[in-house]
């Protein structure tokens, strides 16, 4: 943005610098800090536990055929109508096996429509510590994980990372945010507790979040 369009920028920066020149406030030296989070010895088990706590569904499968069968079962509960799918060879194969007759809108055809009944995407990573999936704009776009009442994620155990620190370090090192304008750590279905602190699932986003987790690649 041109300087003329941002007249206060320098003034604010000067004020900040002047403020900081007044000296560092009481900065007590922090002593030996303990481990903040419990180390995760079994990421898969932890991920499954956290999925339950997050009110997500996690279905463990042995191979692609088993994934297709589970996927088909999940889709049985999805009402008729368009299903939005990230255009990826692995998901094309899954759809071919599990739902060849379903009305599909591929991400290569554009963003999911408002009326999508479900969305199907891959994930960049799964995070055991919080039972989360990490998606980016590459996983079918921004709307793919939030527009429909049901979001189905197809992932493999090899994508599991133990904790948030690992996941964030990994996306920083791989330049993921340089290639994507968006990333999101999703930890459950959309929810609210704004009335009397009572939990309601499916606020503005999906009511169901299903992870089909395959143990082999």
């Amino acid at each position, binding site marked *: *943005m041109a300087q003329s369009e941002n007249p206060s920028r320098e003034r604010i920066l000067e004020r900040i610098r*002047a*403020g900081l020149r*007044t000296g560092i406030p009481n900065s007590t030296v922090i002593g030996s800090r303990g481990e903040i989070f419990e180390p995760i010895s079994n990421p898969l088990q932890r991920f499954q536990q956290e999925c339950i706590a997050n009110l997500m569904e996690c279905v463990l499968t042995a191979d692609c055929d088993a994934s297709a069968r589970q996927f088909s079962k999940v889709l049985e509960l999805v009402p008729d109508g368009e299903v939005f799918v990230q255009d990826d060879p692995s998901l094309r194969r899954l759809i071919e096996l599990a739902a060849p007759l379903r009305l599909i809108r591929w991400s290569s055809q554009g963003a999911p429509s408002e009326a999508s009944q479900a969305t199907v995407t891959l994930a960049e990573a799964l995070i055991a510590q919080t039972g989360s999936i990490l998606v980016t704009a590459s996983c079918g776009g921004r709307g793919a994980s939030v527009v429909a009442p049901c979001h189905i994620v197809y992932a493999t155990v090899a994508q599991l990372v133990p904790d948030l620190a690992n996941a964030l370090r990994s996306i920083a090192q791989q330049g993921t945010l340089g290639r994507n304008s968006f990333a999101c750590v999703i930890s459950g279905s959309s929810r609210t507790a704004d009335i009397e602190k009572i939990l309601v699932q499916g606020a503005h986003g999906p009511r169901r979040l299903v992870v089909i987790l395959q143990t082999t690649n």
Partner: protein
Amino acid sequence: MSATPAQRFLQDAAVKSADLVHREIIRRGMESYDAAHLKGRARIKDWEAAREKCQEIKREAINHLDQYLLQFEEKVIARGGHVFWAADGDEACAYVKNLAMRLGVRTVVKSKSMVTEEIHLGSILEKVGIKVWETDFGEYIVQLRDEAPYHIVTPAMHLNRGQIAELFREKVDPGIVSDDPSDLMAAARRKLRQAFFSAEMGISGANFLVADAGVVAISTNEGNGRLCTSVPRVHVVVTGIEKVIPRLEDLAVLWPVLATSGTGQGITTYSTLIGGPRRAAEVDGPEEFHVVLVDNGRSQLLADAEQREVLHCIRCGACLNICPVFRHVGGHTYGTTYPGPIGSVLTPHLAGIKEFKHLSYASSLCGACTSVCPVKIDLHHHLLQNRRNATEAGATKSSERMMFRAWRSAMLHPRIYALGGWSMRKALRIMYGMGLGGTFLDPMREWNRHRAPVPLPSESFRAGWRRDLGAK
């Protein structure tokens, strides 16, 4: 003459404290929060270590604020985003308003942002004919009631389901019969879906601005923040300059700590990172991305070495939830954008110590706020410092200054002090004997109005002290 903020606070506090329905709603809400918060804390192995880490991250960020903001700005611009620095609320609102008008925006969807409340952005846009939809469920409810948010995390926590159902029947759908929260949410979802898919601009706040990655981090549970930042063709982030943090990895601690302190969750459902407009190969997302960095008094606070750490606040709301004053008088009584202990500390800096010095006294100084703050802000001592600052700035009433001068003089002259004490005991005994306790003649009337008069001692404290020491 209209009432001052201090007079309004006292009037509203008296009304709210006596409102038993309100107290019951808040009691239940806070009980539920307390249980979730404790459970959430138990998920973190060393909560104190987590607080120290967060304090350290925020301290580093604030003590190098200029460097980290410039780093953030550079990255956002490199990805095709725009960064606007606003000295105050007027500049920030003018920028967003002009942008909206230039792009022909008629409808805006907003996700929850306390900074936009602080600068009154919604009403500024509405004045030029732009329809603004608050899309967070709680914010939507208070918008329908034309009210300010009651709480910085749960804006409608002062209402029960019956009150909300009645409001929805009147303003959303007359056909609503149930007061079940899921039915009410479904009604709001139906209504707001139309707004999401017709709005040309989405406005959000930011929980953090990540300097090394040049992204904004937004935490939401409902998914409304996701839709606001995905569907409209323009996304505007309006946030305070103090939200910057140095590194992406810092979120590995800040996200869980924010969620635990805010709602008791291990992590917020959608922890989103956005670094710019949609890229050429991306399926969707806004074509324009703007970040408005709002100063509005924050840089002045940097110069206050004693209270600079107030800028560390991550707006989790934990200090509100635990505060015995907030629990009794409620959020609206404060009459400020930020209620509760953090609001009482911050507001005099942002809106003037003379007008808002009374908030420093809306505290029992019990220190509960300090004990729960996830970034270890010494809140109750800052309230004391604000009391001192108000006195030094001459913001106190002349009657109060005279009273303290008289008290000081008495303290320096023990005989006068003893005489004063004796006279007061005698006078009060006669007054209470005549049944005048709690009336306008009673100097202890604020206490005695709703209580039996405090029993008067037969002798002075000094006399009792001498006698007891003598006995030993």
